[in-house]
């Protein structure tokens, strides 16, 4: 039996913020794939954001700006989203891509979410509609330092995600799953530029049992500004294993997951630098 007593459909950000502020039991409803399956008992009202005009994709330089209510299917179909579109095509399944929104996916990252990790290595920025309509921004490092929902006070909402570069940047990712659609034991992604044979602006991150993406900084520093080579990538994999520490999973031994993390780091770096 549903505990939902009210369903509200605001037409603007200001109205949505007002509705959310008015009662602690109200929750913002984006695509609904989380609340539809696991609505917490404390939620007694839903504020549906579908009429708030946050479904848009705008080009900005070599990057894109994604409205928080843009679906993964829309990102996957948008040529201007470049590498992000390619990643979105591999996220979840077809009906879920039609429902999952960018905002919902990053505000409620789960260990099987694909998008937060990719946005993290692409160095995305997140704009929040705060108290009194004041806007504030977070870098990806700030945003995923803690569960992103804890950054928002009641009545505040994520407005858009800005991805600085989706063209000219190379992205690769891998995940350890037993079969298609399985919850990954570990996911790894890397983004970098290759300039005059050197790797630049390298960002490598992973998600394991903790659903927040974490950068592998030692590994990034090791490869930054250097020429790709098998030896260097092997070294980067070792550094990543040390950076990540113990990784636990009920299906695989922690040693195995850690080992695979190192292998994946090597492979994503190889893939990013393959001509």
């Amino acid at each position, binding site marked *: 039996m549903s505990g939902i007593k009210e369903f509200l459909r605001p037409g603007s950000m200001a109205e949505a913020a007002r509705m959310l502020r008015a009662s602690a039991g109200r929750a913002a409803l984006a695509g609904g794939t989380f609340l539809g399956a696991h609505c917490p008992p404390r939620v007694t009202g839903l504020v549906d954001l579908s009429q708030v005009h946050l479904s848009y994709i705008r080009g900005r330089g070599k990057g894109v700006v994604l409205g928080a209510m843009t679906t993964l299917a829309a990102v996957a179909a948008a040529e201007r989203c470049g590498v992000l579109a390619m990643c979105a095509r591999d996220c979840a399944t077809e009906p*879920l891509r039609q429902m999952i929104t960018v905002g919902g996916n990053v505000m409620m990252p789960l260990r099987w979410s694909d998008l937060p990790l990719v946005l993290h290595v692409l160095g995305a920025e997140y704009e929040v509609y705060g108290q009194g309509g004041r806007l504030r921004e977070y870098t990806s490092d700030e945003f995923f330092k803690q569960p992103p929902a804890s950054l928002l006070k009641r009545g505040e909402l994520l407005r858009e995600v800005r991805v600085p570069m989706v063209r000219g940047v190379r992205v690769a990712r891998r995940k350890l799953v037993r079969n298609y659609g399985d919850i990954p034991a570990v996911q790894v992604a890397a983004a970098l530029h290759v300039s005059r044979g050197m790797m630049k602006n390298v960002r490598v991150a992973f998600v394991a049992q903790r659903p927040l993406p974490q950068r592998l900084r030692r590994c990034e520093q090791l490869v930054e500004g250097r020429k790709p080579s098998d030896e260097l990538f092997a070294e980067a994999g070792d550094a990543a294993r040390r950076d990540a520490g113990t990784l636990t999973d009920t299906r695989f031994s922690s040693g195995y997951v850690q080992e695979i993390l190192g292998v994946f780091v090597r492979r994503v770096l190889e893939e990013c630098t393959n001509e």
Partner: protein
Amino acid sequence: MNKAVKHLTVTINQQAQRLQVAPGEKLIDTLRRHGYKSVKFGCGEGTCGSCTVLVDGRPHLACLTFTRQMEGRQITTLEGLGRFGELHPLQQAFLQEGAVQCGYCTPGMILSSHALLARDPDPSEEAIRRALDGNKCRCTGYAAIIRAVRRAARIQADATPSPRARRAKR
């Protein structure tokens, strides 16, 4: 009447309807309550695809969708595709290829395939696999289903006159 229960205007299978819906009611429950029994409950968490319907022509999972989200939208269930004695090409093809065993996943499979053929009338096997990646079958297996979608694409192509034939008819 409970104050929270409101009327909702939606189009189901091309018929405008005004439904009484409680705030937390799921689309699958609303549809089944109104007789659209092809919409099946499976996992209840968006994994199996048994509850797939089309919303504005795109696959959507009715078990995760709150019915109130559907205000003003166009919903298509399997009942909207074919009728007894007048099957949709996808239904014909699923029968001819033996792509149905227990049949529980079939409505979702057919609707996902319908959305695919609407945007890509001649899909590759890879495109069919991707379009059906959210629909799980646990008895027939996927080979016959993929063949059925390809067959349906051929049936539809044969039924659609070529531009030349259309010009000749005029």
